[in-house]
């Protein structure tokens, strides 16, 4: 990559056109949502009791799921990017399974493992009396399952792009692998971690299929915003639009707020 500034060029039409189409394609549904919003009844709908409960549950569970993904996903990404071991390509492919799996199937798979009769769930139930389905912890688990690949892929990409010479320099100066990881590698890939965490949080926030399959739907306990939206859609399209709009506004506001902080970071 050369650092010489490139002369100003006209943006080629062959790029501008598909870029514009792409943007339009992503933004038009949002326009449709705004056009369909019943603005006059908005305040009344906002004040309905279930809305804030579902919103709070959504934000809490998505944040917890993101933290879980960060705690487990960064080490996993590091392993995939920095350690050579047999079967690495297979593991890398396995990490993306939740991405291609229909979320509802993911929910069934979680039930088969963590459910009351599941591989681990039956043991958890018998030993500790803990059952995860139909609990808030179950929601976090379902969201983390679906969202983790976003973090792992983003962080692994950042790690592979990071110059390994810094780590080698740290090692020659006597730093152990753990110290190198915490003092050199992590700061180096911080923007990648942030991007991955944002993707992960956003995916967790919008999660529907795995959540309703694994954790069920009960107001205040497992009914997150996407579930509330889906059920509202059954009877009242406008209520569903309002709920979607709230979720959208809050998440965009949070992301925009955080972004300002991160963009100034190196």
């Amino acid at each position, binding site marked *: 990559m050369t650092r010489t500034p490139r002369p100003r060029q006209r943006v*080629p*039409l*062959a790029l501008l*056109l*598909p870029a514009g*189409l792409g943007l339009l394609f992503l933004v038009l549904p949002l326009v449709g949502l705004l056009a369909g919003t019943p603005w006059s009844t908005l305040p009344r709908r906002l004040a309905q009791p279930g809305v804030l409960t579902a919103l709070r549950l959504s934000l809490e569970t998505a944040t917890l799921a993101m933290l879980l993904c960060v705690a487990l996903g960064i080490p996993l990404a590091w392993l995939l990017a920095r350690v050579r071991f047999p079967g690495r390509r297979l593991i890398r492919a396995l990490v993306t399974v939740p991405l291609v799996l229909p979320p509802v199937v993911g929910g*069934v798979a979680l*039930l*088969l493992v963590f*459910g*009351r*009769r599941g591989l681990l769930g039956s043991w958890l139930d018998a030993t500790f009396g803990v059952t995860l*389905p*139909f609990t808030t912890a179950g929601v976090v688990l379902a969201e983390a399952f679906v969202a983790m690949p976003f973090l792992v892929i983003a962080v692994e990409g950042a790690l592979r792009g990071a110059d390994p010479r810094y780590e080698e320099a740290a090692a020659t100066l006597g730093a152990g692998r753990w110290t190198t990881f915490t003092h050199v590698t992590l700061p180096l890939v911080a923007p990648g971690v942030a991007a991955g965490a944002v993707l992960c949080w956003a995916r967790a926030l919008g999660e529907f299929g795995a959540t*309703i*399959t694994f*954790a*069920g*739907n*009960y*107001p205040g306990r*497992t*009914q997150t915003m996407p*579930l509330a939206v*889906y*059920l*509202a*859609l*059954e*009877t009242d*399209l406008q209520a569903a639009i309002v709920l979607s709009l709230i979720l959208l506004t809050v998440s965009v506001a949070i992301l925009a707020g955080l972004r300002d902080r991160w963009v100034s970071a190196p």
Partner: protein
Amino acid sequence: MTLRWIRAALAGVAALALSLTGCGGDEPTAQDGGGRVTVFAAASLTESFTTLGRDFEAAHPGTTVVFNFAGSSALATQITQGAPADVFAAASPATMKTVTDAGDAAGAPVTLVRNQLVIAVPKGNPHRIAGLADLARPGVKVALCAEQVPCGAAAKMALEAAAVKLTPATLEQDVKGALAKVKLGEVDAALVYRTDVRAAAAELDAVEFPESTRAVNDYPIVVLKRADNPAGARAFVDYVRSAAGRTVLTAAGFQAPPDQ
């Protein structure tokens, strides 16, 4: 040079769009008109309507029946938003009403069948559940449908009629979701339709309860106003309401509507 790229890009986009619409097998467009009937039907009609569709095609050579099975409310939304359908069969009069209110029905809907709730329990009924009151016992996990969908509205009426108050483990988005939770052993019982348990008779038993007569669901069917194939649509509705159609539907566990 640039122009060629644009043309190639546009051709690519067009090809992609075409292939995508071509792949959407669930919602075909009835452009050819010639003998295709598109039926939007409630999820609980899946098994019986699939059979009836085959029988109808055999009785009307050259006619194809295409189904879109989903929750009634989702189907009603699709229809009022302009989805191409000839016939709509809903699992409740309330969902049918959203379609008739929007002016999308040709004529008045008729009641095709009725469905009644039962308690679905794992084979052998390990928790010895005999009626609605047993569902409120401590330690019994229950799945209900959410009130917004027909099976949930019926469950609420039945529980109120029995004066039973219970906290379900989950309020499912549709009847098949509640059914799946029993099949997987995550709950001990669920309130579902008799037809659902009959379709899963290998894994589940049905416990009948008297209050279910207080929460009977009528299934209305109607030909839609924007039908591409109105003649075919009417023929299909006539067929499912005929004696032959009735036989298939009652075998699936549906009841005949009164005075029809």
